C-alpha cells in the first residue's frame, strides 16, 4: 500500500454520529470482485435521488468540497458491517484521512490496512474542525510522524494511534510479508499443538 506520512488537504465536514458502513457504501455495490471503482458509489443513497441526480441537500455535492481529501465526522464512524468496500470507496473517492471523535473497531483496522489514516480527536476538536469547514473552504495538515493536526489558522491538535499501525502506515508495508518472516514460529506453534 501507499505510505502516508504527512497530508495537507481540504476538509469535508459530515456532522453526524454513528455513520454506518451501509451508508458509506450500500450493499447493492458489494458485488464487484475487484478493489477499484467504488468511489462513485460512496454515500450513494445520501448523494443521489432515485433517478440518479445529485441531491442538493447533501453537502458532499456542494462544489466547495469537490477537492476535499480529509473527512471529519462525529462518534462511532464506520459502525456496522465489516465490509472493506467502505474504506475502498472513501479512498477511491479521494479521501486520505478520516477524522472522527471515535471509530468502530473493524472500520479503523480496515483503514490502516489500506493506507487511509484514521485520526481520533476529542469532541471539541472535531466540532471545531466541522464548524470551520462548514463556513467555507478550510485546509489542514495531518502529520503522522509527529501525530499532530494543524490548520491554516490557529487550529492545533495531537492524536494517538498504536505504534504498530503507525509504522505500517508510514512505511506502506505489506503486512503479510512482515508476518511471513515469522513463518518458522507459526510452524512451531502448529507442531506443538499436534502433540
Amino acid at each position: 500500500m501507499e505510505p502516508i506520512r504527512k497530508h495537507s488537504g481540504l476538509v469535508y465536514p459530515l456532522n453526524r454520529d454513528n455513520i454506518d458502513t451501509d451508508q458509506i457504501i450500500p450493499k447493492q455495490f458489494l458485488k464487484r470482485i475487484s478493489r477499484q471503482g467504488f468511489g462513485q458509489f460512496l454515500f450513494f443513497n445520501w448523494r443521489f435521488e432515485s433517478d440518479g441526480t445529485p441531491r442538493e441537500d447533501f453537502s458532499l455535492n456542494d462544489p466547495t468540497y469537490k477537492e476535499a481529501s480529509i473527512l471529519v465526522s462525529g462518534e462511532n464512524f464506520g459502525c456496522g458491517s465489516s465490509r472493506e468496500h467502505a474504506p475502498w470507496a472513501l479512498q477511491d473517492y479521494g479521501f486520505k484521512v478520516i477524522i472522527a471523535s471515535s471509530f468502530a473497531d473493524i472500520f479503523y483496522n480496515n483503514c490502516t490496512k489500506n493506507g487511509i489514516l484514521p485520526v481520533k480527536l476529542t469532541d471539541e476538536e472535531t466540532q471545531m474542525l466541522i464548524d470551520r469547514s462548514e463556513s467555507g473552504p478550510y485546509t489542514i495538515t495531518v502529520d503522522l510522524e509527529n501525530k499532530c493536526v494543524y490548520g491554516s489558522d490557529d487550529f492545533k491538535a495531537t492524536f494517538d494511534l498504536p505504534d504498530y499501525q503507525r509504522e505500517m502506515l508510514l512505511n506502506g508495508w505489506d503486512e503479510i510479508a512482515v508476518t511471513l518472516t515469522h513463518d518458522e514460529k507459526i510452524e512451531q506453534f502448529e507442531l506443538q499443538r499436534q502433540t
Partner: protein
Amino acid sequence: MGKPKTIIEKIWEKHIVHQEEGKPDLLYIDLHLVHEVTSPQAFEGLRMKGRTVRRPDRTFATMDHNVPTIHRNVIKDQVSKTQMDTLKNNCEEFNVPLADIHHPDQGIVHVIGPELGLTQPGKTIVCGDSHTSTHGAFGALAFGIGTSEVEHVLATQTLWQAKPKTLNVKVNGELGTGVTAKDLILAIIGKYGVRFGTGYVIEYTGEAIRSLSMEGRMTICNMSIEAGARAGLISPDDTTVEFLRGKRHAPQGEAFVTAATEWKSLATDEGATYDAIVEINADEVEPQVTWGTNPSMCIPISASIPSPEDAKTANGKDEIKRALEYMGLEANQPISTVSIEHVFIGSCTNSRLSDLRRASEIIKGRKVNPAVTAIVVPGSHSVKAAAEKEGIDVIFKQAGFEWREAGCSMCLAMNDDVVPPGERCASTSNRNFEGRQGTGARTHLVSPEMAAAAAIEGHFVDVRKLGVPTT
C-alpha cells in the same frame, strides 16, 4: 493456583504465536469461515503475489449473502452470479472446502458453522463478516475482519491483534414468558447504546444467560457488534457440550469426553476481573421493537416513540429527528399503533430451527393479515429440511407465509428479496440502518414471536396477548 482468569484471557494466551514489546500479538486462527462477498479481492491478492492458502483444512466457505431464495437454478442477476462463480473457482484453485448454493450444508455462514460442529469452545474463529461474533455463544473467541485481514489469514493462518479490554455484561434474574434472547439483547443495546462495547470483548454472564438454549445464546452474541464489540462470548457449560455432541466436525467417542472436560475448564474462573461491567435485570425486559435507524433506538412494545426533545445533545436531537423522518413516524406515537407491510423471519440472528418453531406456534391456526407480505427464510438447508420434517413449513404456508430457500435474503437485500421504498418491515434480523432492506425501506427489529404476531395483526402487538406457548 495462579491468578483467576476470564475465558477471554485463557483463549488469548493459548493462541499467541509471537509476542514482542510495542507490537500487537500474533494470534493463531483455528477456523476461518469464508463467503462470496468479502473474499474475492483476498483470493485475488494471494494470486497476485503467488501465495497459497496455508491451511485449507482450517478454512470453510459457503455462499449466503447473494443467493436467491427462490428459483435457485436460474440466477438472473449476472453480477451476483459472477461473485458466486468466483468463489467456486477460488475454492477449487486453493483447495478450500465449499458448501455451494446446491450443497446440502449450504446456509448462512454463522448458522452452518455451529450446525456442522466446526464452531467449538476455545477456538479462535474469524470471518469477513461482522456477525462472526455469533460463534462466541460456544465460548469461542470469534470476530469479524475486513478483506485485507481475510487475505492475511488465508496466507498465514494468523492475525496481528492487540489484546482487547474485557467487558462483563451481567444479566440478573430470568426472562419472563414470551420474552426472548432477542428482546434481551435489544434491551441491552437500548439501555447502553451502540458503542459501549467498542474496544472490548464482551462476556455475557448471569442466571438469565445460563438458562438460555444455544440458539438463544447465539442470538445474544450475534448482536455484540451492534453494541460496538467485535466479539461477545459465553463460557461453555453442559448446554454447550450437549449441543455439540454428535455434530459432524466435533470430536467423537472418547475424544469427545476429553474435549468436553477441556471445554468446560475454559469457563471464566471464580474471582476473575474485567476492565468494565454493566448489568441488566432480565425480569424487567419486555418484548422490544426498534423504531429508528440504529439498534439502540429501541423501546418496549408498551411504550411510545421518543421525541427529539428527549435527547440531551444537539447531535442526539438531530439523530432522532432524522430517524423519525426516515422511518415516517411521529414522536410520542405508541409503537403498537404502527402498521407494517412486510414480515421477514430469517437472518443469522433468528433463523434457526427453534426460532422457526416458536414463531410457528404463534402462527398456528391463524392467518397473515391481508395487508402483509410475509416470508420465512431458514438459516440453512438443514434447518429447512428439519423444519419440513416437523411440518413447520406447512403451518407457515397455510397461514399465508412464503417458505424460502436458505440465505441472508432480506436481512441485507443483496438478492431479490427487497423491501420497497417507504414500506415497513417487521424483521428478525440485526440491523435497522437506513436502506438496509432496500433503498428507503423501513426496518423494525423484533423477535421471531413478535414478527409472527405482527404478521397476523398487521401492526406491532405484544405477543403475550396472543397467548404464548409456555414450552
